[in-house]
């Protein structure tokens, strides 16, 4: 018995295209199947045709939220390929970490807003997104853009940090810490929020380990696995204020609390950096020439993205562009846990369960499928076909629009 309910690929509860087929008995989910592939853009193939030094600037377009960590991990791998990793100036490394931690704050606040929006609490959604703007302002100063900010480049960073920005960062850190207290209070005291998040989407520690979950999803299930601690890359360590956050509750509430506490940790780190930023150059001299071909070889690089472990693999065959780039994003690692967590839950809890892993579909799928409305199956169009189709569509629909307005 039981019936299937398809959710997605385009559904009001999901912010990005993903299809979940759930089998229900009454209101309870007994099975869930996840289908993806609605946002694959072939970036790994594109990267094989680009110069090594321009790879980071395309890699950051993999994700619109955690663009910085994609760029930094790409740079880390390329600096290993060129064998200049140990020559990077200290000040550049500190500014990179500053960018990474600011990104973690804005990504977690964005997630917190979306999770609460899924639970039906739109006030906090508005508040967290307002707070997030302050962080985006700093990122705009650091990189020149708000979302895809390109702070780093192979050999260092693009812009220096001045005293005015440092003061702004300390203000933001204090502001964020105050706001975190408020959000924590909401979650600990509000009975409606507790009812939506407590004992929902439980992921036991053994399953979290067995399914190799990463990032806050794992840490909320009492798995202390953080790449910042495991690899200790760049300057990460207890002396800059870093600590690993672990919660034992294993439910959606724990996932919220882990992220709020991580925002506090990141606020401590950015404040420490703003106060103790070492002086010196921000880039190696001379710069890496664009057409320089590195020696053949293979390297890996990994970092802790806001959603978990981000992994890059590079192979060079001695040409100025990569032979192979492989990207493994955290959502692909966590997606199996959604199917596990959804089982036994109510239909109404699916959005919260799905949001609890902080999914980033754009990251996960990195071709374009166009449904022309007549075909049931997705159809692949050539460029000229697409142009013809869009002209036809606008002609038909716009004429209709004009009539309507008249």
């Amino acid at each position, binding site marked *: 018995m039981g019936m299937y309910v398809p959710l997605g690929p385009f559904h009001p509860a999901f912010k990005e295209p993903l299809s979940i087929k759930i089998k229900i008995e009454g209101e309870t989910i007994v099975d869930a199947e996840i289908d*993806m*592939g609605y946002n*694959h853009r*072939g970036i*790994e*193939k594109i990267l094989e045709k680009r110069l090594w030094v321009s790879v980071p600037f395309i890699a950051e377009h993999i994700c619109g939220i955690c663009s910085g960590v994609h760029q930094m991990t790409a740079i880390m791998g390329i600096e*290993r390929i060129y*064998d200049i*990793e140990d020559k990077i100036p200290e000040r550049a490394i500190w500014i990179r970490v500053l960018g990474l931690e600011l990104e973690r704050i804005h990504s977690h606040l964005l997630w917190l807003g979306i999770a609460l929006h899924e639970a039906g609490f739109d006030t906090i959604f508005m508040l967290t997104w307002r707070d997030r703007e302050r962080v985006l302002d700093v990122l705009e100063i650091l990189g020149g853009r708000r979302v895809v900010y390109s702070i780093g480049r192979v050999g260092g960073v693009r812009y220096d940090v001045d005293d005015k920005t440092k003061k702004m960062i300390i203000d933001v850190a204090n502001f964020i810490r105050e706001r975190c207290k408020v959000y924590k209070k909401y979650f600990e005291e509000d009975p409606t929020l507790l009812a939506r998040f407590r004992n929902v989407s439980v992921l036991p520690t053994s399953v979290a*380990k*067995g*399914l*190799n979950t990463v990032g806050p999803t794992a840490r909320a299930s009492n798995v202390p*696995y953080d790449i910042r*601690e*495991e*690899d*200790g890359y760049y300057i*990460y*360590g*207890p002396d800059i204020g870093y600590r690993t956050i672990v919660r034992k509750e294993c439910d959606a509430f724990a996932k919220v609390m882990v992220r709020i506490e991580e925002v506090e940790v990141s606020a401590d780190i950015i404040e420490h950096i703003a106060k103790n930023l070492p002086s010196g150059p921000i880039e190696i001299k001379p710069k890496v020439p664009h057409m320089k071909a590195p020696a053949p070889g*293979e*390297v*890996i690089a*990994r970092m802790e993205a806001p959603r978990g*472990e981000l*992994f890059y*693999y590079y*192979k060079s065959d001695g040409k100025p562009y990569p*032979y*192979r780039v*492989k990207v*493994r994003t955290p959502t*692909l*690692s966590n*997606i*199996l846990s959604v199917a596990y967590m959804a089982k036994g839950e109510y239909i109404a809890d699916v959005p919260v369960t799905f949001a609890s892993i902080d999914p980033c579909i754009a990251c996960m*799928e990195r*071709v374009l*499928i166009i449904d022309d409305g007549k075909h049931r*199956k*997705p159809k*692949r*169009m*050539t*460029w*000229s*076909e*697409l142009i013809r189709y869009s002209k036809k569509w606008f002609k038909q629909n716009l004429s209709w629009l004009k009539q309507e307005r008249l």
Partner: protein
Amino acid sequence: MAKTKPTEEGTSTLNSWISEIVSGAKVEVDKFGTAWVEVPVEKIKELLSGLKEKGYTHFITISGVDEIKDNKMVLIYHVAPSGLSGYPILCVKTTIPRDNPVAPSIVDIHNVALVYEREVYDLLGIKFEGHPNLDRILLPKDSPEGYHPLRKDFEIKEGE
């Protein structure tokens, strides 16, 4: 901090664990602290399950590389230690023929490989024997046979 930074003791212990399972295999640690080892494809399951018991429980991913010049495909299994200190991240390389790319599935050892193996199959056309549901994952399900974009002889045509 930096638990995955290899110590001499960690590297030699890892070497002994691997040579117990695959005789003659030797771990090479590069200057960035990553360990690389090459093993025959028949031994891959045995090696990964042996290492999982010792503490290499965190399975990162599978990278597939099309070596068209040598007419072979290379699979790299990246595993990391969890709860150990002084042991490096390990990349296990294995080579399979390009004309008939088949490798054993490791789903029963690392469950998360369910998605990674489907991704490698989808983009490179490497078949995994024993995978319960080896289907396309990222590209459309009705893509033609032999449509694997990350192969080196794949030509990008207009509009695709």
